[in-house]
């Protein structure tokens, strides 16, 4: 035997099979470890399948290294009936190897459950999604109901409302959101003016620019921009804050101490939103109209800011302002309630926190647009 062949047998794992009296003699050599078994696994399994035997006798005298992975594929030689496994014998050099083989044999007996995928899984998921939509809507309404009861109870004992917390939340929800809401509303007003400028000028109606900008911004865009930003900024923050508290059992601790979770967490946030939303909407209206005025001044010939404002105060009546304003606190309430409910629905895992936060924003935006549509129908019916 050449020197090369000798070193080869030490560094490379190998095996030999021999069957005598329905007993398999398995001689393993070299290192049988995670790093080396890939080449052996398929070959060993193929060779074993063509043998006919009951018991196994392992010879590990030439084995230089054995880890759990090696033991596992060696243990595949052990034949089992559904009730029990045939015995195995081991000639080896360490007690650790015996224990490993016993563990491996045990492990290969108890087959672990599989995650099965079925072709109709996608239908099942669709069904579950529809069911969860109905359930979520129902749960939101239930939460709103409980919130209303607690809110009305607190109305009679205003000193029990946590005003400090309310003010802190107003700073975060209202004051800190004002710059971005005003900026966005300014752009929306400008966009409306640009779109209207061409259309109206084509029909020689450019003097109607103030009405267009006024109606659009006052009735719809100011309040919707406010709601979108609030849903993206504050609603997600509410869910994340409350959800993190839920994960650290802070909510449970509060309940044991005797603090009502609605009074301490939900009411201050809801009040902050209800108070901030109209103020933010008002700011959004101002900057939206400003955007409209500036674009009109630049893009439409013959309409100065002065003419714009004169016509604006003549044609755009106060009721349009109130249509927009009346929606603001409702949107604020919707956003706060959905944010808090999703936060309280977080369970132990980090994943559920992420899922609930996403769900919270999606639901809040959905609810805001949906309620906005209901308002539109309502105002149309009463002729405002």
């Amino acid at each position, binding site marked *: 035997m050449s020197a090369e062949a000798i070193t080869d047998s030490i560094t490379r794992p190998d095996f030999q099979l021999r069957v005598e009296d329905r007993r398999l003699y398995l001689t393993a050599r070299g290192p049988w470890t*995670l790093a080396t078994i890939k080449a052996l696994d398929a070959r060993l399994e193929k060779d074993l399948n063509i043998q006919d035997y009951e018991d196994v006798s392992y010879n590990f005298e030439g084995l230089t290294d054995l880890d759990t*992975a090696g033991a596992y594929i060696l243990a595949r030689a052990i034949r089992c009936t559904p009730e029990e496994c045939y015995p195995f014998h081991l000639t080896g050099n360490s007690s650790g190897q015996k224990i490993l083989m016993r563990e491996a044999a045990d492990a290969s007996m108890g087959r672990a*459950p599989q995650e099965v995928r079925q072709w109709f899984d996608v239908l099942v998921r669709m069904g579950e999604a529809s069911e969860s939509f109905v359930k979520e809507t129902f749960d939101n309404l239930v939460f709103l109901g409980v919130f209303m009861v607690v809110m009305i109870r607190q109305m009679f004992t205003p000193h029990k409302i946590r005003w400090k917390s309310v003010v802190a939340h107003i700073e975060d929800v209202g004051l800190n959101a004002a710059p971005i809401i005003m900026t966005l509303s300014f752009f929306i007003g400008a966009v409306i003016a640009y779109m209207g400028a061409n259309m109206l000028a084509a029909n020689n109606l450019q003097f109607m620019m103030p009405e267009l900008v006024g109606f659009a911004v006052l009735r719809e865009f100011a309040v919707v921009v406010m709601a979108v930003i609030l849903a993206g900024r504050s609603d997600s923050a509410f869910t994340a804050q409350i959800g993190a508290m839920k994960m650290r059992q802070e909510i449970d601790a509060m309940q044991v101490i005797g603090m009502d979770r609605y009074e301490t967490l939900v009411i201050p946030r809801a009040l902050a939103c209800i108070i901030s939303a109209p103020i933010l909407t008002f700011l959004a209206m101002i900057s939206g109209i400003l955007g409209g005025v500036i674009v009109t001044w630049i893009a439409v010939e013959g309409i100065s800011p002065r003419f714009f404002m004169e016509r604006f105060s003549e044609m755009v009546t106060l009721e349009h302002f109130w249509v927009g304003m009346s929606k603001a606190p409702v949107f604020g309430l919707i956003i706060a309630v959905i944010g808090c409910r999703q936060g309280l629905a977080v369970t132990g895992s*980090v994943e559920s926190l992420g899922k609930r936060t996403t769900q919270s924003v999606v639901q809040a935006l959905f609810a805001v647009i949906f309620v906005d549509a209901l308002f539109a129908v309502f105002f149309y019916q009463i002729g405002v």
Partner: protein
Amino acid sequence: MGIDFSKPPVEVKNLRSQFGDNVVHESLDFQVRGGEILGLVGGSGSGKTVLMNTLLGLKEPDGGDVFYFGQNRTGLSTKERQSLNNIMGVLFQGGALFSSMTVRQNIMIPLQEHTDLPAALMRELADMKIHMVGLPTHAATLYPSDLSGGMRKRAGLARALALDPKLLFLDEPTAGLDPIGASAFDKLILDLREAMGLTILMITHDLDSLFTICDRVSVLVDKHIAITDTLPNVMKHPHAWIQEYFGGPRARAALNAGDGAGAN
């Protein structure tokens, strides 16, 4: 690389760790022998976790050297460090399981990262580890949030063992377990050491674990390892903190229980 399995698994020479001006370790020397279970004790804030993070390579030493099987970590390339890390496993205190994956997927992660085995074999090996740490087979498809504290530790241990490490670090493995669960976990550690030929370094405050499964105990006090020896010798050490630690009523109770078990 100079990994030599006949050399001590961990050897720390003249280690210094500091955060800003706050020196945590100074001239710390420390050795773990092959095949032993070494318990590391020390007061809160004495830098046990900093020492373990240093040994794991999560923190660079501010002075001194760390050797693994005779191989100095300093000066190794990223790739060499990784292959060094592959012979180590760690069980963090809370288990540190990835919460978006099932137990089986958690255990498969190291295999997927560092081997090119077929997926089916990886799954089977993961299931074997689940079995070896004493989890029921149905735990394979559960998420960490569905597990109890004890099961989570066992699952974390299974992930630590995924690559068949030579060296296992345990951070307070029995903290938060009830006495039955804790002694079952101690026994599991002993069994796994025998089956897999592990060397184990465990941080623990569980006096029962120290008395029943640790071969030697190291005491981290005054920014260095004051003594590393068998428990009876450690208890004779005159340092005031060590006397207080092992002289308290809890330690005496655990010692008596340990003696009783030994006599049987």
